[in-house]
């Protein structure tokens, strides 16, 4: 099989499908290559958050806001039920020690333009009556939203197909091909060679392995995260709820929490997300344990225990399923969305860790703008691959 397109996108997860969608909107001839079914890696083992509340105030949160705006357009234009709901989200403040940090976070996000509220004392329980009685505050961001991540992948893939994109699932890229000058000229796959002068590597945690074969080091490591799925049941909260300590496990400094060492060792922090089907999801864990996607029973126990600390009323609700996914972690928590200077024609779009669903629209848009040669929607300097050389 030899076929010529303008761009080959490697990876049929949320990032690769968003890139394919925006390129096909620009009438670029694009082919999406995925080794399994689309949405079968990390994008099938996550939750569906579009959150600004947990982003660093500044570039990080501005990137998210741009992405949220694009997502609003996608919800209208993609002919697929994305199960999109904009209910807002809250961070739970556990004790007096967390309060000043949480108030500071609230102030900075509000100054950055997010629709924030701080609730204290009785207001907390008027808002979310089933939270544990000893929590003391809530930080709310009203614009946060959620959706079904797999539905977003399927919707983007179907929309891309209808505008002429070629979708090649169950086709594994074994090598990126270069011509005599070192520029990209295609990919070698398990179903033959495909030619193109531009290749976008959007393979999440599997990105470094393909990049290293063309001499490019990509500092992405798999960070494993577990999720519990609860049966359809009365919900303990009406919208997304995360413990404030989640920010501490995300950015570091979790030692400020009053939890036993086992919780910190596995990066356990309570995250609650209601789904459109009446179930709810409970996270989270964060740990560097290689590429093993199997669930660790001990971690699931710790997560259940942490969930009960904040929602004592869920004691008798059943967990029907659990799963684990590998989030692509970078050293500075920002993704890589960048051309690769050493290999002309090669682009990398990966490393979104737990923010891939929320940042997929802006990532797809930025890659499309880079390839078409338009000014980018936001400065891309902080997303460049060479920032790690400095």
């Amino acid at each position, binding site marked *: 099989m030899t076929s010529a397109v303008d761009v080959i996108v490697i990876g049929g997860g949320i990032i690769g499908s968003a890139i394919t969608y925006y390129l096909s909107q620009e009438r670029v001839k694009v082919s999406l290559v995925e080794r399994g079914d689309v949405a079968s890696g990390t994008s099938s083992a996550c939750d569906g958050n579009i959150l600004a509340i947990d982003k660093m105030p500044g570039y990080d949160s501005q990137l998210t806001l741009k992405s949220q705006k694009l997502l609003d357009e996608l919800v209208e234009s993609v002919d697929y039920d994305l199960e999109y709901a904009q209910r807002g989200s809250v961070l739970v403040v556990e004790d007096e020690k967390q309060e000043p940090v949480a108030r500071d976070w609230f102030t900075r996000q509000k100054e950055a333009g997010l629709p924030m509220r701080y609730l204290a004392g009785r207001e907390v329980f008027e808002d979310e009556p089933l939270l544990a009685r000893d929590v003391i505050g809530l930080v709310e961001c009203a614009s946060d939203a959620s959706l079904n991540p797999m539905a977003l992948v399927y919707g983007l893939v179907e929309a891309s197909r209808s505008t002429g994109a070629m979708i090649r699932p169950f086709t594994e890229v074994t090598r990126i091909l270069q011509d005599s000058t070192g520029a990209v000229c295609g990919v070698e796959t398990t179903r033959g060679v495909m030619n193109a002068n531009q290749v976008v590597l959007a393979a999440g945690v599997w990105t470094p392995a393909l990049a290293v074969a063309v001499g490019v080091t990509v500092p992405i490591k798999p960070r494993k995260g577990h999720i519990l799925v609860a049966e359809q049941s009365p919900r303990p909260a009406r919208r997304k709820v995360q413990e404030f300590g989640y920010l501490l496990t995300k950015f570091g400094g979790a030692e400020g929490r009053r939890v036993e060492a086992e919780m910190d060792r596995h990066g356990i922090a309570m995250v609650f997300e209601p789904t459109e089907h009446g179930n709810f999801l409970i996270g989270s864990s964060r740990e560097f344990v290689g590429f093993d996607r199997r669930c660790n029973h001990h971690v699931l126990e710790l997560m*259940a225990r942490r969930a009960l600390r904040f929602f004592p009323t869920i004691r008798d609700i059943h*967990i029907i*399923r659990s799963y684990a996914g590998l989030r692509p972690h970078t050293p500075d928590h920002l993704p890589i969305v960048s051309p690769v200077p050493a290999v002309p024609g090669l682009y990398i779009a990966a490393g979104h860790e737990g923010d891939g669903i929320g940042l997929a629209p802006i990532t797809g848009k930025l890659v499309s703008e880079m390839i078409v040669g338009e000014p980018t929607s936001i400065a891309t300097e902080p997303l460049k691959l060479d920032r790690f050389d400095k």
Partner: protein
Amino acid sequence: MDDDTIVCRCEEVTVGEIRKAIRQGALDVTGVKRRTRAGMGLCQGRTCEKIVTQILVQELRKPIDKLEPATARPPVQPVTFGLLAEKSYD
């Protein structure tokens, strides 16, 4: 089987919806599950998995032993938050 027949009773997924998922590229039970929710309910596919497999065999004209088996996800049986949490006190 009629398109309106319900296959997954927990999530109320019909034969027609499963056939549509197969047309969109689902090649196995997991691909159908991710696209339709068949098998994502309380019984986790105990009732419908074999029927979904049968529809896949018919639609894809593929022998049953060439289909990928469904991904097994813990817990084997539904377990309450209380029970799971307390076990870690051992």
